[in-house]
């Protein structure tokens, strides 16, 4: 017989999977609408270019400007939807092989908005030499979100947060750095039972560090699991 915490965990996993599938469906639909907008706008641009219109020069210039503006915004929205779609599909399977830089890039597109609202500069510095990982990508994105929010909470307006990736032997390392911030004793890292549970499931370790003038850093070391470790 399944006990209560196990049932709750199964239910949460199923909810996450359903949410992911609905979000993936939504982003597919939005891409279809965006495709039509891009092609229709492109057709107006083509008519202006290939056939020309009889009108004042200023009207043609205004139309061209509007067409270019629509195209620019479509390109931005398309990139965001591309990331949203990838993000939504992360819950398709619990354990999967993935590229850490790609996973962070798709999440950071959305995290960047929170930084912007607080007037904090957020940069992702990916190490291109990372090895592929086999682990739980959706859980890792959840953990990255929590760590990012902790950093953002302590960052000052006008300050910055840097997220760097690197490879240390077989471990992928992910470091958040908030320069110029000092915290009271005991505030140096996010703490909750759920966070520890996430670290356990990922087989990861979290190392907080703070020093005078050096700011705060959170370093997450992440292994690539074997299928046996993932199942256990």
């Amino acid at each position: 017989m399944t006990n209560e915490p196990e049932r709750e965990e199964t239910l949460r996993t199923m909810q996450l999977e359903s949410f992911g599938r609905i979000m993936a469906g939504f982003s597919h639909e939005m891409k279809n609408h965006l495709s039509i907008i891009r092609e229709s706008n492109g057709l107006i641009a083509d008519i202006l270019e290939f056939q020309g219109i009889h009108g004042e020069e200023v009207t043609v210039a205004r139309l061209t400007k509007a067409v270019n503006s629509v195209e620019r915004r479509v390109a931005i929205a398309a990139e965001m939807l591309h990331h949203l779609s990838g993000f939504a599909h992360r819950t398709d399977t619990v354990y999967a092989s993935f590229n850490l830089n790609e996973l962070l890039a798709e999440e950071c597109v959305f995290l960047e908005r929170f930084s912007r609202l607080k007037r904090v500069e957020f940069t992702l510095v990916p190490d291109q030499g990372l090895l592929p990982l086999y682990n739980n990508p959706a859980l890792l994105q959840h953990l990255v979100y929590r760590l990012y929010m902790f950093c953002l909470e302590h960052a000052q307006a006008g300050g910055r947060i840097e997220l760097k990736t690197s490879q240390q032997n077989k471990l992928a390392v992910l470091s958040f750095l908030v320069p110029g911030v000092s915290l009271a004793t005991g505030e140096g890292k996010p703490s909750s039972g759920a966070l520890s549970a996430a670290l356990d499931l990922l087989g990861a370790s979290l190392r907080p560090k703070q020093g005078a003038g050096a700011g705060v850093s959170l370093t997450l070391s992440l292994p690539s699991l074997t299928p046996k470790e993932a199942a256990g």
Partner: protein
Amino acid sequence: MSKTKILIIDDEVEFASTLCQRLRLRGLDASDVHSGSEGLVQAVAEQPEVVILDLKMPDVNGLDILTEIKTQAPRVEVIMLTGHGSSASGIKAMEQGAFDYIIKPVDLGELMKKITQAAEQRG
């Protein structure tokens, strides 16, 4: 010199017909159909140089249509349209015989390049 013949198979009528008009404006002999089954019949009967095929359609799976086209009309090159966030579905299509894939919403410059390459490959 004859125009490169293109067939667009996509259930989104507005998308397919507008893309078709834009390809015609660029000197291609483009036509469009809006269901997978109709697209297969036309691809086999008309033997266009290049088919632009949507991966997800209500009546059939684009990958099944791709397999059928490559079986019944192997000289037709197929470029898949995918709305997926990852490149996995596009790569899978290429493993099944597609010439290449392109992610929606389509960048026309990129599509034109792929059409030219596909037509050149066909010879």
